[in-house]
């Protein structure tokens, strides 16, 4: 109990050994082990949150390389033969053919968002160690959670094109290895954001509103 009150100072539920269930939100004594309402495991903070988040983010970084270097799809047509293109080549094609809005959408969803997401998760892990502006880090976390899923758009475009454009020898589209690598990057960063416990930011800041002190 004394270790806990050192880690969670002040008049908080955590200092009294009460935890809110991650699943249903019921507040119960953490020593009872599982939530009396929904049966989920009770923890003051998500267990091994930082280690898991870092591991998942590193895996996403590694997969980000093949996701961008390898071809995302191959177009085989009667007139042009087989033509493989990576994600960035797809963006360039849209831009040069004058489809500027689509080029911008794909560029933001497939290139900018994954990089920003990986960077912001890393910065959140730093913020959970020492932090002066917890509200800023919390906003970054919320944005990361909302925006991350939209990176999947390119994977879905490939899936739609492959299933629709099957016109025999005239034209057919095959997915490249980058599609699944990219999908894995998105899923891994989503899991990383999910395993991150945003209350760690506030623990590191040691900040509490006046009425709780």
């Amino acid at each position: 109990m004394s270790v806990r009150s050192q880690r969670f100072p002040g008049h908080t539920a955590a200092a009294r050994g009460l935890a809110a269930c991650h699943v249903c939100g019921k507040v119960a004594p953490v020593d009872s082990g599982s939530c009396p309402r929904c049966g989920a495991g009770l923890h003051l903070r998500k267990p091994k949150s930082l280690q898991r988040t870092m591991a998942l983010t590193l895996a996403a970084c590694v997969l980000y390389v093949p996701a961008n270097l390898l071809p995302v799809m191959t177009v085989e047509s009667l007139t042009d033969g087989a033509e493989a293109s990576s994600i960035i080549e797809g963006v360039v094609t849209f831009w040069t053919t004058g489809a500027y809005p689509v080029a911008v959408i794909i560029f933001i969803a497939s290139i900018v968002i994954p990089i920003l997401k990986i960077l912001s998760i890393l910065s959140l892990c730093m913020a959970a160690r020492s932090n002066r502006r917890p509200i800023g880090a919390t906003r970054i976390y919320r944005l990361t959670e909302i925006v991350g899923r939209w990176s999947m758009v390119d994977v879905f475009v490939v899936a739609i094109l492959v299933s629709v454009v099957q016109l025999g020898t005239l034209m057919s589209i095959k997915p490249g290895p980058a599609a699944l690598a990219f999908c894995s990057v998105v899923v891994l960063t989503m899991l990383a954001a999910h395993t991150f416990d945003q209350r760690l930011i506030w623990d590191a800041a040691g900040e509490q509103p006046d009425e709780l002190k």
Partner: protein
Amino acid sequence: MRDLATSQRVVCPCCEANLCEHKPNPVQRATAFSLAALAFYFVAHFFPFLSLEVGARSNEISLFRSAGALNDFGNPGLAFVVAVFIIAAPAALIGGSLYVLLPLLWGHALPGAKLVCRWVYDAGPWNMIEVFMLGILVSMLKLTKIATVHLGVSFWAFALLIVCLTASFGAIERLELWRRLEHAVGGLR
């Protein structure tokens, strides 16, 4: 929660997150939107969403068949992605929330309702139908150069499915749903 007046809400003093707000008739509204979503789900998944014409050849495909088609063309990975994010996750959300919500209208809970309720909220982030919708629009723009493309009836049902699912989850708060569920399960004992 019941003491909140209209337009009042409770906010975390630290991070300014919305903790709860006044929502009128939460179970009724969530159930209504879920039922509407169920109807749109069937139209969206079993009718063609995109048809393609090149010369005399044409090809049209429904969402439900697209996963199978991907698998047949030797792409089990992509087929799995579509099956999980576009077919299974929204189905789990709609089916699961109706399993919990419909009996709650009369203050009851079916066996395993708590487990189903956990699954529904776990499945939430993996439902990517709105991202898929953007994907349909982008691939349509990509295809207009090589073929005549028509959006099918399923596309519009898909748009309404997104609206109804979002509205259903917006109509009732997670904590409020759990509070009512606990009450209903307690009433059974």
